[in-house]
């Protein structure tokens, strides 16, 4: 009995002595830290993505507290609201920045169409390690376009927000703009530098060149139907001098662009993409299809009341040339934010099926993305091809050597 008693007493005494020692040690070696750092960290999103340039949210919080001028610090994940809250907490002027979103500047779908062709045909197969970085270091890629998306999904792997997914049918990544925080990790991960952070734009409306091919027009066009061929038509049509041409590639300055969309209709290959706009009204009236009346849903927004899959299924009969195999994966995909809407893939005036969809769709203020989302222009692009060839025969002055 006494053994037990002594044991317990010894342990208790030990505990008390050590507690006292620890108390004084803790007093002596206490790290003085600004309590506001903890408060600021609590406001920050806690994603620890590093998009601000600091090692995690703690590092950012320390920088925010330490620096008097925080105008250079910005958390793209939290955005304006977070920065405002932090600014109020610390009594500093919070920086303001336009919200941005990642856009994939390659629309060259590798999906096979009914006739065995593809917008950007695969010419060989890469069987090495499934990594864009490895593939880019090895050779030019599976398609004829040495600038285009390699499709191994390095961008998907680095995204901490599940905002980017690979579309297995097209072999292209698709960004969910509601989840994308513009942290820029995918931009760095892409060895082809295809992904760009662009201003989200009013009502998420954006116009951009969805191509990074710097080859001469003929070469680019041969590799991919929707390549920028550097013809310069968009530069001429733009009233705001927002478009510049460099090495056979057009670039639209998001600050200067007034979203007039003239360039979208002007582009002979459909390389310029508009997103977030309601369907065009100027399309010639076509018989309203009952199926399309359900369309003003936003396939890009999972929060949309309407089921995107239903929309897709209903829209399918209109897209006559789309093979079932091609449409199915699209229907399963709900986040097709950057996928090329059918309406943009071709001049609307030339394709009846496109016109049907566009005109039938009710522009809805509550939804922001356009209607029939299909990742590939269907064979309806066929009528546009002669136009494109004609462009090659008469090179425009802007076409470079």
């Amino acid at each position, binding site marked *: 009995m006494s053994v037990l008693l002594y044991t317990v007493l010894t342990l208790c005494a030990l505990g008390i002595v050590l507690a006292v020692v620890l108390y004084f040690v803790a007093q002596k070696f206490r790290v003085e830290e600004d309590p506001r750092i903890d408060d600021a960290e609590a406001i920050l999103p806690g994603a620890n993505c590093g998009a601000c340039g600091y090692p995690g949210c703690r590092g950012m919080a320390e920088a925010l507290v330490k620096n008097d001028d925080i105008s250079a610090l910005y958390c793209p994940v939290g955005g304006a609201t977070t920065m405002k809250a932090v600014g109020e907490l610390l009594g500093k002027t919070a920086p303001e920045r336009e919200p941005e979103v990642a856009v994939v500047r390659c629309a060259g779908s590798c999906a096979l169409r009914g006739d065995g062709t593809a917008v950007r045909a695969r*010419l*060989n197969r890469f*069987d*090495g*390690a499934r*990594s864009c*970085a*490895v593939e880019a*270091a*090895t*050779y*030019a*890629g599976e398609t004829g376009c*040495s600038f285009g998306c390699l499709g191994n999904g390095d961008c998907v792997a680095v995204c901490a927000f599940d905002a980017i997914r690979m579309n297995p049918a097209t072999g292209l990544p698709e960004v969910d703009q509601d989840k994308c925080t513009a942290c820029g990790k995918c931009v760095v991960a892409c060895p082809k530098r295809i992904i760009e952070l662009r201003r989200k734009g009013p009502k998420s409306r954006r116009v951009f060149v969805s191509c990074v091919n710097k080859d001469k027009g003929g070469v680019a066009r041969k590799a991919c139907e929707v390549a920028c061929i550097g013809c310069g038509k968009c530069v001429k049509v733009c009233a705001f001098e927002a478009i510049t041409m460099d090495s056979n590639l057009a670039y639209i300055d998001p600050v200067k662009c007034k979203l007039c969309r003239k360039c979208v209709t002007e582009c002979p290959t459909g390389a310029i993409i508009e997103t977030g706009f309601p369907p065009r009204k100027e399309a010639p009236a076509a018989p309203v299809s009952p199926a399309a009346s359900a369309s003003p849903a936003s396939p890009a927004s999972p929060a949309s009341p309407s089921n995107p899959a239903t929309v897709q299924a209903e829209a399918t009969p209109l897209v006559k040339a789309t093979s079932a195999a091609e449409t199915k994966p699209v229907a399963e995909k709900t986040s097709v934010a950057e996928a090329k809407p059918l309406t943009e893939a071709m001049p609307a005036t030339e394709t009846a099926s496109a016109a049907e969809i566009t005109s039938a769709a009710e522009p809805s203020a509550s939804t922001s993305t356009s209607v029939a989302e299909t990742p590939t222009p269907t064979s309806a692009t066929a009528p546009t091809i002669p136009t494109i060839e004609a462009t090659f025969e008469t090179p425009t002055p802007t076409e470079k050597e």
Partner: protein
Amino acid sequence: MLKSFPKGGIHPPDNKISAGAATSVLPLPATVTVPLSQHIGAPAVAEVVKGDNVLVGQLIAKPGGFVSAAIHSPVSGTVLAVEPVAGASGVKGMAVTIRVDGDEWETSIDRSTTLVTDCGQMDPSAIIAKIAAAGIVGMGGATFPTQVKLSPPPGKKADTLIINGVECEPYLTSDHRVMLERTAETLVGVGLLARALGVSNIYIGVENNKPDAIEALRRTVGDLVRFLPPIEIVPLKVQYPQGGEKQLVKAVTGREVPSGALPIEVGCVVQNVGTALAIYEAVHKNKPLIERVVTVTGKGIARPSNFLVRMGTPVSALIEAAGGLPQDAGKVIGGGPMMGRAMSNIDAPVTKGTSGIVVMSGREAARRTETDCIKCGGCVTVCPMGLEPYLLARLAQKQRWDESEAGGVTDCIECGSCSYTCPARVPLLDWIRLGKAEVGRIIRARLNC
């Protein structure tokens, strides 16, 4: 007991099915495409423009820097274009396209087959100047400009010349045929190399799966004993990758090249037999490097052959001459099956480094599905550089470049032994190559700033 290198190594089936095929001259193609970057270092700078008429052996591009090589026209005809052309990897590089018209050679080139044996009297700097003028590069595949290799940096002195007749890559037989058919010329080239370097220890390393080559070399050394410096033929135990410079130095001399250093650090210079032949032709026949022996082989190829090919000939023409692309062809590999790279464009031209074209069937070439690393250490055992491939691959996947560098990724010779041996079929070399490229970039950036 035959010599070999002690660390790592594998024994893939050697499949030298074209070994018995005597070298035949491939007919001239209709057009040739001569890339301006056929060597390690700065691309050459074109000296011709569209419309120019050129002769065989005429200089068409001068070296673009110290580590660079001149390029000569392999054919006579008219320059059709000087513009970027897609190479074997689909990546575009500047190239001169020439339409072939007849076969008019520069008059300065001696086309006779008379053997010139002089190699002891020439001025070393004159030999090196002629090598530079002929645009000779390492013909084993690494394509390092030879004149740079023969000019050791200040303070370093070579005492040993090792000629690489190992040809450890499975399938390839181009060096084997050169040793058999052009023995005397090659040996005079070796003598010229020794003279240029001022060395007296000369070895020719040949794996003992080529007994006829060893025999031919020994006999010819005996025949030419009055003209040549003493040359020792060293038969080596068959083991891949014995043709690697550092492995060959270790196997022949027992010296270990330190990590990150070149063989010159231990007084050795390694040159390929094909390079020795090119040097003979350049010095004694004034003939620049415009053609080389290329093995075209593969189990599905009707006539596995060794062709003497002008540079710039499309690879597809070689395959056609060997019986055409088989029905079940899955991969066409430029170089050997271990270190070569699959070509995405078989109309790409033969270049100075093209030692062979291996056509593999879809079944042979298929990569099996990758599974998880089982930590068996097989890759560590076979790595001839003593690296830890599984770790380097993992670090590359995680983009941890600092640790990759510390792990010696830049020492990797990309021999592929690790990927070959991996029971989990992890594409180790793919990742390590990425790591090597990235770390190399980081190191260069560090040196520049």
